[in-house]
């Protein structure tokens, strides 16, 4: 399954670290001025929306994000901002015949994406369903003990990256939007924390940082994307972003790599030879709550 992860021509080396160094030098003067915590707060207060940041603004912001991580974790972030790959539409196909409910994906996701450990925030929920129903509302997401249990089907749910996302429509400040490759992202520095998107989401995919996310220095994954897994502030909404810092850099999402059963397939729907394209074409696939016309990018099927 390690074939056909799309190539990103905009980031040939995947990192753009050299650009960062350049910018760092260019803004060295500003950086010294803004080194104190107080001006950092003002910087953040006046920070513009992600889409309005100039290249220099971005350098300043990225510099601040890295400095904050240094202060908090005493570790250096490899902060990137990979752009969508032109012509790519990412999607998941999950085999419910194969998934056995072991939740390895859940744990890998938490580690990869620097989610708060206490209170625990998880992007993926695995729902245990009785044979004979696919109604997720009748399932159990708190099952414990050895899996798979007889007579049960396990259905992992995460952000469906809807092509017609109700959450994006709901956000009053455009802090969440759909990118060209279909991934719905959040600008954590723009979100006002009203949680209207959470009311709008029919898949319960969004999480809110009610408390300051807690993360130990040794738990920090330093390979982070600006719109994905960088350490989040308190009071903003977050969710699955298809590991865009990995997938836009030709790597599979953490949950796919962690899954011991091979139930998860990830790839480009626009590539007719990708796993997901073939599955959508050849298997009998379904999506959750199809009647809502959200057009999910998370397909389920039975082998």
């Amino acid at each position: 399954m390690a074939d056909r992860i799309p190539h990103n021509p905009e980031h040939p080396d995947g990192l753009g670290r050299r650009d960062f160094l350049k910018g760092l030098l260019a803004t060295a003067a500003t950086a010294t001025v803004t080194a104190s915590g107080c001006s950092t707060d003002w910087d953040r207060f006046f920070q513009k929306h992600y889409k309005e940041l100039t290249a220099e603004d971005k350098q300043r912001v990225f510099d601040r994000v890295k400095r904050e991580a240094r202060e908090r974790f005493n570790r250096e972030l490899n902060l990137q901002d990979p752009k969508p790959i032109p012509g790519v539409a990412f999607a998941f196909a999950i085999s419910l015949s194969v998934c056995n409910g072991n939740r390895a994906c859940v744990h890998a996701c938490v580690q990869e994406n620097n989610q708060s450990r206490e209170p625990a925030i998880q992007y993926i929920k695995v729902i245990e369903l009785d044979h004979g129903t696919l109604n997720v509302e009748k399932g159990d997401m708190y099952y414990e003990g050895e899996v798979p249990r007889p007579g049960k089907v396990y259905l992992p749910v995460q952000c469906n990256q809807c092509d017609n996302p109700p959450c994006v429509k709901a956000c009053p400040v455009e802090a969440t939007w759909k990118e060209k490759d279909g991934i719905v992202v959040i600008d954590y520095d723009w979100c006002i924390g009203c949680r209207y998107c959470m009311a709008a989401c029919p898949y319960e995919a969004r999480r809110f940082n009610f408390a300051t996310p807690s993360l130990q220095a040794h738990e920090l994954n330093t390979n982070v994307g600006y719109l994905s897994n960088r350490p989040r502030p308190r009071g903003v909404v977050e969710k699955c972003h298809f590991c865009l810092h990995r997938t836009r850099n030709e790597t599979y999402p953490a949950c796919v790599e962690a899954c011991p059963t091979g139930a998860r397939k990830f790839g480009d729907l626009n590539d007719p030879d990708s796993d997901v394209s073939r599955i959508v074409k050849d298997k009998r696939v379904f999506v959750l709550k199809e009647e809502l016309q959200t057009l999910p990018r998370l397909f389920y099927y039975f082998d």
Partner: protein
Amino acid sequence: MGTYLRYWVQMIRCAFSGTGLYYAWMAALTLVVIAGGYALSLQLDEGLVVTNMSDQVSWGAYIANFTYLVGIAAAAVILVVPTYVFHHKDLKEVVLIAELMAASAMIMCLLFVTVDLGHPERFLHLAPGIGRLNFPRSILAWDVIVLQIYLLINLHVPGYLLYKKYLGSEPTRTYYLPLVFLSILWAVSIHTVTAFLYSGFGGRPFWNSAILAPRFLVSAFASGPSLLIIVFAAVKRFGGFPVKDSVFEYLRKVVMVAIPANFFLLGCEVFKDFYTDSTHVASMEYLFFGLYGHARLVPYIWTGLALNLTALIVFATPRLRQRRLRLAIGAFLCVVGVWVEKGMGLIVPGFLPTPMGDLVEYTPSAIEIGVCMGIWALGAALFTVMAKVAIAIMRGDLRAASSAAPRLSAAEEADVSLA
């Protein structure tokens, strides 16, 4: 300009002088506001984790109170229409009080939304031009706009008329009448938009109902006039302001129609969900009977409905309604009953069970209750001060030195008319 400054100085002086009872009332409210401020400081310090909201029930008491108060604000239209469209003389004497109540309710609404934000300091992101207001796609963006315009209208109209009265000059109709008519439309629109906040989502079947906006308006026309009955009774008793019996009678009749209409609309919702008996009945079941052993809202909602029914009985029984105190008690039951039903009785079951079948119950935390009480007390204090000053101006106690208008005689006082 000098006159205008003097006007403000006089108003502020008026706000700080009063009877012992007035001082006691304001001191009590101030204490509650301070307690609420302390609760809010804890929330700002720790984050919304001090509330009992969760990823499952992501809105709670704050948004419930917000929703309810939009209705209270909208209900001013119940007095505005007969006053300005049908020139009802008795109502004209008290309509400014209703408009000031709408303005106070609107300020409370904005406060309730603000304390619910994870990042209230980012409010400028909502400002058109400065931020990125997602208009017209986001209904919340619509709500932000219509609520603030309604607040401005309800500050301008009474503000202008009172200033003119203070000066002893006739108000210019074109300076306020167009806004009065706009406010009629606007009152309906604020509550409609607030209902659309909820009813626009396919993923929340409990809210996804076409009659939510009519329900909101009808229940507002029960709770709003009920609150006005209490306010007018208090103004008459303690404020020394004449409120004619016909005003109480008019409001009572409005509530008499609105409570049964509200029951009817609720009944339509109940029928649709229970008779269809699809998976979408789960929220209704949770609310009225409990689901999978979770039943925290059951006594709450039945109490709310019982309060509304009792209020209706009080309003309909001649022996009970003829005494003003009893009528005010009946009105209070309706105010609380609707608050239960369209507050948390509407918000919480919209989230439960969750779209993925989870069920995490919610009751507000002590801090949430503290913040809520603080905002209610602040709203009550604002309204008391505004009403006190307005009454002083309307009675002619507070007027410009140059104003030749003599102090009203007792007979004229009963005939105070503004527009």
